[in-house]
């Protein structure tokens, strides 16, 4: 009887600790996804209006171990000391690569042309960030609008 009570108490403490740790990690993952979505949106909106087009492909944010390149938004991520612009890859961005590859962060940019009557042409841009955690796929969506300059 005493042993089973002790076991339950110990189990509860361990479970509480693990749950709390997992929740903090999850909030960090979401925080990073939000920042990625915001960066992706700004980069897409920085392109000329006519070059912003719909693309249903879900691209990785980083260069995979197999060498597959990231999507166009993250092709030239930064210029480290080597002097040439690089994508997020393991060799030059070790901790960042670990952060994005562990949870397989990917992005998708969908664009819808809006041509309302008696108004300027505009586009609705929807950036979706996907990531995996313990077998589940999560997503964060950020939507924005861009009007054509006349």
């Amino acid at each position, binding site marked *: 009887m005493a042993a089973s009570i002790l076991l339950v108490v110990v189990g509860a403490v361990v479970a509480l600790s693990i749950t709390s740790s997992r929740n903090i990690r999850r909030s960090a993952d979401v925080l990073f996804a939000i*920042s*990625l979505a915001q960066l992706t949106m700004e980069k897409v*909106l*920085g*392109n000329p209006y006519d070059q912003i087009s719909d693309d249903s492909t879900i691209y990785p944010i980083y260069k995979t171990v197999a060498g597959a390149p990231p999507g166009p938004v993250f092709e030239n991520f930064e210029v*480290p000391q080597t*002097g040439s612009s690089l994508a997020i890859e393991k060799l030059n961005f070790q*901790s960042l690569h670990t952060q994005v590859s562990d949870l397989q962060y990917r992005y998708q940019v969908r664009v819808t042309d809006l041509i309302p009557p008696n108004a300027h042409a505009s586009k609705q841009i929807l950036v979706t960030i996907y990531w995996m955690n313990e077998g589940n796929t999560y997503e964060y969506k950020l939507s924005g609008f861009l009007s054509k300059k006349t």
Partner: protein
Amino acid sequence: MNISFRAFFRRRPDIHSYPLPLSRDRMGFTFVEIMVASVIAFVLFQAVYQLFFSTLNSNKVHDEYTSKLMACRVVLMQVQRLTVDARAILHPIPSMTVGTTSSNTLVFRDSIGLVKTLSFSKETGELKMHTLDLQTGTMVPGSLDPDLGGTLQPNPRRSILGKGLKEVVFTVDSMSMDTLQYRIMIDDFHLVGGVRLLNG
């Protein structure tokens, strides 16, 4: 009742014979049993003790991790708030050959023409801001904020935007000169952000 003294005590040995024989369930613990029980109790107590303190320690680690996440977020928001007001980036300038340029220092002109710098020092782990005072022509720590009369006054409280940072990198791309990208790192956690300049 003719019973001899010896016969009486032979018939009722539980009363007067000494030492008293005890039944199995009334017997005490042996030394070995007490030792085994003590060892088991000690091991259990030790396990609970360690679990308790490891949980406390884990909570402390989580608290620190959460504080760092929040600190990273606060720095990101401060950079965002400052750069959203930028009109032109003076440094880093993207080279036409490389296409993208990154730097630990950002120099830009804001909406009222003030030149501001955000510089990260790897030695101190601080992200500092300086502003060019147009009247004196010198760089002053912090920002120049208008007072109630509309006169710009140095605000040194805004000179250090973040502490305990591991890396801050500003990146501009020649393909989209209007977009500034930044990455902030605390410990092994990164946050990224971007802003489009209002110079178009």
